[in-house]
């Protein structure tokens, strides 16, 4: 920058003051100024986040509404989309492929639809998480709020989406002869645990995605692999029973978080999906463990980079 007529004529308008000798840091300390954009402590961060709860909820609802606002049928698509999804799976796996492996169509169709909906919940939370920061840079660069609001808000949007799908799921289950019972109460804790897990995962993905937006291209393949490995369309124990494999392999496959939440939900909803045959040991414990572990570590991991989100 030497070609300019920079003559150092920075006009000094300030009269001499006792603060003149102080360095910027000392001056800031003297008047109680804080570093702008510094990361708050973890407790303070949680407090700020709690203060923004209304924004988080309103943002998720706004995203949900905005999704179908151009469609003629409008919000009806919230229910119609999962319904059509269920119909397609019924057509292909139930009628054409008959992939029930002796489970019986009355169990298999609700089994399949539950699996698809529950897995979609995690899948779309991960995808929304990847784009939570990188797809909202405008927002991040314009307004001040704890950044975790974004991945949390997107997970919340997916939860609301799932609630619409659950309506369809109830109809499917009842249609195939599993009627509401006390077991259905277990749906609430299962959803809560899966939501916690998804939220943690979304926060992890949000931080990774903010640094490497390419993940949005890569994740669909990872997620599809995860889906096939989790037994969405087939039952893991039934699939492996005639192979000569140690039992623990089946258990480990079933302890995979996606599989565990699907299986718990199936057990709660479907008559004839028995606990001792279909669920791995310690199912509830594993479900709680995944939720707490991923939610807590995801939150801390996201918070660690709080001040760095928004860099180009």
């Amino acid at each position: 920058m030497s070609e300019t007529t920079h003559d150092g004529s920075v006009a000094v308008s300030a009269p001499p003051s006792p603060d003149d000798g102080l360095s910027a840091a000392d001056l800031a300390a003297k008047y109680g100024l804080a570093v702008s954009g510094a990361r708050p402590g973890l407790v303070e961060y949680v407090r700020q986040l709690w203060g923004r709860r209304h924004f988080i909820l309103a943002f998720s609802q706004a995203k949900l509404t905005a999704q179908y606002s151009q469609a003629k049928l409008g919000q009806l698509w919230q229910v119609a989309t999962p319904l059509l999804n269920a119909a397609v799976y019924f057509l292909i796996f139930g009628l054409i492929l008959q992939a029930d492996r002796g489970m019986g169509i009355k169990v298999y169709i609700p089994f399949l639809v539950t699996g698809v909906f529950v897995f979609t919940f995690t899948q779309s939370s991960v995808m929304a998480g990847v784009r939570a920061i990188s797809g909202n840079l405008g927002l991040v660069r314009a307004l001040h709020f704890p950044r975790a609001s974004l991945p949390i808000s997107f997970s919340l949007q997916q939860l609301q989406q799932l609630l619409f799908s659950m309506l369809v799921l109830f109809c499917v289950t009842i249609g195939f002869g599993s009627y509401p019972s006390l077991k259905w109460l277990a749906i609430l804790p299962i959803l809560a645990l899966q939501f916690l897990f998804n939220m943690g995962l979304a926060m992890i993905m949000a931080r990774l995605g903010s640094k490497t937006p390419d993940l949005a291209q890569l994740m669909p393949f990872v997620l599809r692999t995860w889906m096939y490995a989790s037994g969405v369309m087939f039952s893991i124990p039934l699939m492996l029973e005639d192979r000569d494999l140690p039992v623990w392999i089946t258990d480990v496959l079933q302890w995979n978080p996606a599989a565990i939440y699907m299986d718990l939900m199936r057990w709660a909803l479907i008559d004839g999906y028995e606990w001792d045959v279909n669920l791995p040991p310690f199912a509830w414990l594993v479900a709680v463990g995944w939720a707490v572990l991923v939610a807590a570590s995801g939150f801390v991991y996201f918070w660690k980079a709080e001040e760095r989100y928004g860099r180009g």
Partner: protein
Amino acid sequence: MAEQITDTRIPTVIADELHIVYRVNGTKTGKGSATAALSRILKRGGEERGVRKVHAVRGVSFIAYRGEAIGLIGSNGSGKSTLLRAIAGLLPAEEGKVYTDGQPSLLGVNAALMNDLTGERNVILGGLAMGMSREQIRERYQEIVDFSGINEKGDFITLPMRTYSSGMAARLRFSIAAAKDHDVLMIDEALATGDRSFQKRSEARIRELRKSAGTVFLVSHNNKSIRDTCDRVLWLERGELRMDGPTDEVLKEYEKFTGR
């Protein structure tokens, strides 16, 4: 300014040798770009190939005091908006630090609003995004709508924002943004929206905000509005602070520089 008594000069914003660098992925085109991308992924840390660095703000230092209205001038791309965002703590500093009193806020909620939602819901969403509580928004709701003048020509506030004309949308955005009181307020060329009568109203609102805010920063290419509202001007050129002083002095030099 010179008559001001020294012990009333309380600093609100201190910028200390501030550097801001943007990193842009995938700007190198043609042969070798894929390998560059690959090596970028493999070599984590260090100087990355294929990533262009844009050094937007280079070592800017200044101290802003309570009660000051500071204009930021400079040609396009000289780093004015970047500097504002850094003061607001929205862009991380590469080097140096910004110290602030309270939370400086940028006047602007555009990014939080959604075109597919009604004006009504956008008022609420925008307010929440700025950190207002639901009660505060409920109190101010009518004020915001009246100020924007959206409902002057019929019940437009219940229509999706995508149906608004660009002028109407800009007016609503300004009204939402200006509804909150701030400690340190930063305005990025917000004064030029809407028709003449709305401009007058918004200028009045800015003056009001100035009274309640501790310090105001204003970015503008309109020297007249700088002259009207600011008593101190920072002149940025190529990311460097070229001049810092009373409005008249700096503007005179700036006008000489730009040939006006």
